[in-house]
């Protein structure tokens, strides 16, 4: 079985600052893969590299066996055209810390947009499926509301439904609960838990250690652009081997 995501020595620099200093990891299909670490450790950057929102400088990154952002012929790499990159991203859903819903569209419009525009689905089919998805995240009654009329937790659930509408084989979550009031975190985590149970492959950058322990299949602790420690969440979180991991967890838990 090919790995859903495979990273080999991934490097990424912003100018002179090297943010990722050689990341190697594998995410299996149906796995819930948690990325934790202090801010600035490069976990969000790595996540953004997976769907080519950031271009990597060295190494190789594969999603479902395909090189991300490039085509390899012999030992030469060719940059993919913007349309080809867009086609790769269709299969990768992403949920952002700040939701990034389209404010000029209703919740329903947000969820319908990509299926209609990118996949060319008929509006009625897309609407039916969008309504099913909104129901799944518990927001069928908010379909006609604009994002400004929704709470943060509701917006993030719409954002998850919007990503799911493209029927992705991989979902990326970039600190999905960090911008939420504490009381709204639970409703978003519930939706993510349901999604994990349905067998979705998920990579989750999070500070919610409880979620990682309960739902995660594996966990990677990153710091300073490298993977410091990895393993099963329960083991890493309860019995961290590395001093950096211990120091970080003692502050977070």
């Amino acid at each position: 079985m090919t790995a859903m995501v495979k990273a080999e020595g991934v490097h990424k620099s912003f100018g002179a600052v090297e943010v990722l200093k050689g990341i190697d990891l594998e995410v299996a299909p149906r796995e819930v893969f948690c990325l934790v670490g202090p801010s600035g450790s490069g976990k969000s950057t790595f996540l953004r590299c997976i769907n080519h929102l950031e271009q990597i400088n060295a190494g190789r990154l594969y999603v479902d066996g395909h090189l991300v952002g490039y085509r390899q012929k012999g030992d030469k790499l060719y940059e993919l055209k913007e349309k080809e990159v867009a086609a790769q991203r269709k299969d990768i859903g992403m949920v952002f810390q700040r939701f990034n819903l389209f404010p000029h569209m209703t919740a329903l419009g947000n969820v319908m947009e990509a299926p209609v525009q990118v996949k060319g689905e008929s509006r009625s089919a897309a609407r039916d499926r969008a309504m099913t998805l909104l129901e799944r995240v518990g927001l069928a009654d908010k379909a006609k509301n604009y994002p400004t009329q929704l709470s943060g937790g509701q917006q993030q659930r719409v954002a998850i439904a919007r990503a799911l509408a493209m029927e992705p084989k991989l979902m990326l979550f970039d600190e999905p609960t960090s911008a939420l009031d504490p009381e709204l975190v639970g409703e978003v985590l519930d939706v993510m838990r349901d999604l994990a149970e349905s067998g979705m492959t998920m990579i989750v950058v999070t500070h919610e250690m409880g979620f990682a322990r309960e739902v995660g299949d594996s966990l990677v602790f990153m710091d300073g652009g490298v993977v410091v420690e990895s393993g099963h969440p329960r083991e890493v979180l309860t019995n961290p081997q590395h001093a950096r991991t211990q120091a970080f967890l003692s502050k977070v838990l």
Partner: protein
Amino acid sequence: MTEKNSPGPADDNSAGPRLSKTDTAPVRPEAIKAIPVRHPGRWVSGLLVIALLVLLGMAFADAQVEWGDIPEYLFNDRIMKGVGNTLLITVLSMVIGVLLGVLLAVMKLSKNPVTSVFANLYIWLFRGTPVLLQLLLWYNLALIFPILNLGPFYKNEMTEFMTPFMAALLGLALNEAAYMAEIVRGGVQSVDEGQTEAAHALGMSPGRTMRRVILPQAMRVIVPPTGNEFINMLKTSSLASVITFAEVTYVGRQISATELNVMEMLFVAAIWYLFLTSVFSVIQFYIERHYAKGSVRNLPPTPWQKVRAALSRGPRLAGTRETS
């Protein structure tokens, strides 16, 4: 609350508010009936303004104005034609200005250094010189280019081509494009980067992202200043009278040259400008309201909705006054 209560002469002591917290019976405190603050300054300034208006009115009552000329000429055929020309040159200049402005904005935002430098130069040149001067330059272009030669497409004497209308159109539209370019660029750049990322993450191509996600949101920022530009253009088009384009100011001046009613014809023109700018202000309001969707929780009421709300509130206000 306690501070407001304390100056009251016969109020209960400060233990009141503290007690009410633990009190089992929820007694609603008495509604505040305070004597409103007086604003003598408002009365003075109001009276001052009224006095000035009265003086102004008296001055005009004595003025040597042939008031009868104004209604007589307001719908005069030549004036109406002038109004038509004003509208025509405004609309055409704005259409060309907006299209060219969008193109220049795209060029300026482009990663291609040649196009962005060109756009910057264009904007620098056209914003850095007065419109009146630009109009005169176009109008007198024949002095340096006697023949207009566009290769196989068009060839003619420049004086034939550069009519007052063409000179006015080129001068106003090309100048407007420079301002519109900056407005459009500002609008596009005002949209959060997260929007582009979200659209890209959904697999939308850059072009589709621009059309479906960025531009509709940029419109909210672009539309209000564009409306202002339109209204400005209505008035700026009067400068074209200098190069003998027969818009309403020019026609008014032409009529007064023979009829010797200079001020009266200027008043007529002023009335038309006021009418046109008022009409377009209303249209602008509705367009802005349309693009405000999603950015505000509740859309502002239309004037008509305000009137209806005031009417339905009226009787209720009267009702409360009767009971109290």
